C-alpha cells in the first residue's frame, strides 16, 4: 500500500510541476518548477532502486544543467519578453495534436498491459549494491559508449565556448 501512495505522490508532483514549467510567464519561475520536476523524477528513480541514477540526476541535472539555465536566464534580459504574448498564436492546434498523441500512447499502453507482465527475471542475489553494478556495467560492457560520451562532452564544451564568446577584433 505504501509504495503505491509514494508513487502516486511522486507522479502527481512530477506532472503538476511539469505543467507549471510550461505555463509560467516569468522564465525564472519556469526554471524553479523544472528543478522541482527533476527532484520528483529522481524520487521515481529511487522507487525502482536506482540509487546511483538518483545521485547523478541530482548532481548533474539539478546542480549543473539547471544552474546553467539560470545563468543564461539572468544574462539574457527577459523583462521585455515577459510582457509580450507568451504562447504562439495557433496554440490550440498544438495542444490538440499533443493531446491526441497522449491519448494514442495511453490507449496503446492500457490495452497492451498484459504484454508487459513478463515473468520478472529472478533477483540476482549478489552482494554488490546498485552503484557497483552500474559502475561494472559502465566500465566493462559500455566502455566504448563512455569514451564516445566523453568526446561528445569535449566537443560540446568547445562549441559552447566558441558560440558564446564575443567576436575577435
Amino acid at each position, binding site marked *: 500500500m505504501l*509504495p*503505491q501512495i509514494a*508513487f502516486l505522490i511522486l*507522479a502527481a508532483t512530477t*506532472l503538476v510541476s*511539469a*505543467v507549471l*514549467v*510550461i505555463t509560467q510567464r516569468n*522564465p525564472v519561475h*519556469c*526554471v524553479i518548477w*523544472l528543478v522541482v*520536476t527533476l527532484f520528483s*523524477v529522481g524520487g*521515481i*528513480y529511487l522507487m*525502482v532502486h*536506482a540509487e546511483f*541514477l538518483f545521485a547523478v*540526476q541530482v548532481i*548533474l*541535472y539539478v546542480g549543473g*544543467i539547471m544552474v*546553467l*539555465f539560470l545563468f*543564461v536566464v539572468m*544574462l*539574457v534580459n*527577459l523583462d521585455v*519578453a515577459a510582457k509580450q504574448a*507568451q504562447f*504562439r498564436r495557433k*496554440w490550440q492546434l*498544438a*495542444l490538440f495534436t499533443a*493531446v491526441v*498523441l*497522449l491519448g494514442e*500512447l*495511453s490507449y496503446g*499502453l492500457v490495452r497492451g*498491459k498484459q504484454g508487459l*507482465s513478463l515473468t*520478472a*527475471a529472478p*533477483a540476482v542475489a549478489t552482494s554488490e549494491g546498485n552503484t557497483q553494478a*552500474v559502475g561494472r*556495467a*559502465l566500465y566493462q*560492457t559500455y566502455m566504448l559508449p563512455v569514451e564516445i*560520451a566523453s568526446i*561528445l*562532452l569535449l566537443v*560540446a*564544451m568547445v*562549441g*559552447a565556448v566558441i*558560440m*558564446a564568446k564575443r567576436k575577435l577584433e
Partner: protein
Amino acid sequence: MTIPVYWYLLLGTGLFSVGVIGVLTRRNVIIILMSIELILNAVNINLVAFSQLFNTVNGQAFAIFVITDAAAEAAVGLGLIIALFRNKETVNADEIDLLKW
C-alpha cells in the same frame, strides 16, 4: 502488490506529452529548451522502469548516457541563445525569421 510497469510508462507518457506541448506552444526559446529536458526525463523514466522489470542495469547505464547527452545539448543550445540574443535582442522563436521568404 508492487507497482506494475505500465504505471511508470504512463507517467513517462504524460511527462513526454507535457514536454511536447511546451515545445510546440511557447514562444520563448529558453522555455522550449526546458521542455526538451522534460522529454528527456520522460525517456529516462521509461528506461529505468524496464531496467527494474528485467532486473538488469542496462537501462540505468543508458539513462546515464541520456543525462550526459542532455547536459551537452543544454550547454550548446544555451550558447546558441546567448549568441542569438547578442545579435537580435530577442528570444522569441517566431521573431527569428531572417530566412523566411
